[in-house]
């Protein structure tokens, strides 16, 4: 059982969220049509673990890039231009590009990993959350707590409250 509360005003929405949080409703989802820093603070989100992915990707890319260039020139000993077979300066450029490429790719991976997307299963959602409504979703509330959550939401000034069955 999930409770959805839709707000027209950001302040009401944030108020409801804070109250729910302090009342012990931990499985909260705060839907907004635009990123709200306060909402993220309420959810306790600080530094995202995405950055680890970025770093790992960059390091991997750097190593892979340099290794690829060196390995290629060692497998095919084809001297060019009187240069050494392992020609470091040009390989650094390859390394640089690969660093960025894998940094970006790993960041993308990290995004999916951390955000839980893609999630194509139906989840409690209101289309208006994508337009101009701020929606609080309380999930996993015990049956006896539902009424309390609903009350908090209503008191905060929600213009619509809905109950949605969660599929387990």
């Amino acid at each position, binding site marked *: 059982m999930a409770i959805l509360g839709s707000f*027209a005003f950001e302040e009401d929405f944030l108020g409801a969220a804070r109250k729910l949080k302090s009342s012990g409703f931990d499985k909260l989802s705060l839907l907004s049509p635009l990123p709200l820093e306060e909402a993220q603070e309420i959810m306790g989100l600080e530094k995202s673990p995405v950055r680890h992915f970025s770093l790992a990707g960059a390091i991997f890319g750097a190593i892979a890039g340099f290794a690829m260039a060196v390995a290629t020139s060692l497998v095919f000993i084809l001297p060019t231009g009187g240069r050494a077979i392992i020609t470091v300066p*040009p390989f650094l450029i390859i390394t640089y590009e690969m660093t960025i490429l894998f940094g970006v790719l790993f960041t993308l991976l990290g995004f999916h990993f*951390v*955000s839980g997307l*893609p999630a194509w299963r139906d989840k409690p959602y209101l289309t208006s959350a*994508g337009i101009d409504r701020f929606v609080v979703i309380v999930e996993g509330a015990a049956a006896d707590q539902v009424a309390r959550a609903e009350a908090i939401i209503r008191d905060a000034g929600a213009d619509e409250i809905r109950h949605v069955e969660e599929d387990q």
Partner: protein
Amino acid sequence: MFDHGQPSYAEVNKDILSTMLETGPKYWMLLGMTMSVAGICFFMPWIYQLFVGVGAAGMNHNAVWGSYLSNFIFWIGLSHSGTLLSAVLHITNSPWRKSIYRSAEAMTLFSLMTATLFVMVHLGRVWFVHWSFPIPNQMGLWPNFRSPLMFDVMAITTYLTASSIFIYMGSVPDFAAVRDASTGLRRRLYTIFSFGWRGTAREWHTLGWAYTFFAVFVIPLAVSVHSIVSWDFALSAVPGFHHTIFAPYFVCGAIYSGTAGIVTVMYCLRKFLGFERYIGQVHLDSLGKLLITLSLIWSYINILELFTTWFGGTSFELEALSFRLTGFYAPLYWEMLIFCAFVPLLMLFKKIRWSWNKMLLISILINIGMLTERFIIVATSQPRKFLPDSFGYYVPSWIEISISVGSFAIFVTLFLIFIKWVPAISIYEVKETLKPLRRNV
């Protein structure tokens, strides 16, 4: 910020999505036109060239690189506005970026695609282009990572990948908005595109972080891409190519032409999609100021190039210089100087900076000048290399001119398709710039 009063959140959605979801006959006519121009001017000559050989173009022994490469640099340059500018402004948190960056990034992506097409057109045996990728091929041989062209391959591939991801990730919340506003097949498609985005605080948070990292990666990447393109030239010993200033020169020129390109695109968005509400004087003014700055840097580098060449005083460089200033292509050189160094100075006047029509004209002139600049670099240096007996000329053939014209049609076609698939203005970021709604206000 908004010339016609602040819209509500719902209006933002409606305004922006309507350009996507409602399609009039004019759009189809325009699309049909650009597609046929692209087909007739770009692809048909190219197919002819594939059959005949690159000899269909005007290049010759004295100038084996021609307009295909100058067009390539031009389009790569144009691509530098979007992603780079968007990333820089994102990191510096400039609010005026938000309504223009989506189109700017699209411009990046499409001009990059057009540029890649020019590489294909340029190649003698394009059917073996995959040999230049580090993937297994029938030769059992991997590419030469010492080659500046390999730097190019790596850089452009990375840039294309990173730009695509950058624009796509930025659009995910908007895809969700499209999903919510549509039905049927489109809804199903956008469900997939949007990854099931709901707009939870966690999603926003992760996206914000990831997006910032993309931006951080993209800035040095974009700088490296055009530096590397410049090294295709600067790493040779050819007089007129062999300058240390080339990398900053190219990067500056790229941002310059890209920014001018944004002005043109903004004008079109405003004019044809009715985004007057979102793209306003403040954008024009900011871009105008940016353009003046870039133009001054560009002029400075040009003067520097002339000066160092003259000061160096080697026969090779001086000959290349005098050919550039007074030779066969001198009119083009002076045209470039007027369009890129002198015309932009007009923007010092606020009156001009605040006029959409005048800015459009200036931005187009700048890009014509930049197109010429690339052509001059390619066409005037090669025929004046080291051995005077091998001096020559290069004149583009009709095939080349036609393909150059066709490339613009391809770009416009891609853009037209883009505005029907992706919201041309970032919905959620426009909302960020609006004052939050307060009860009883």
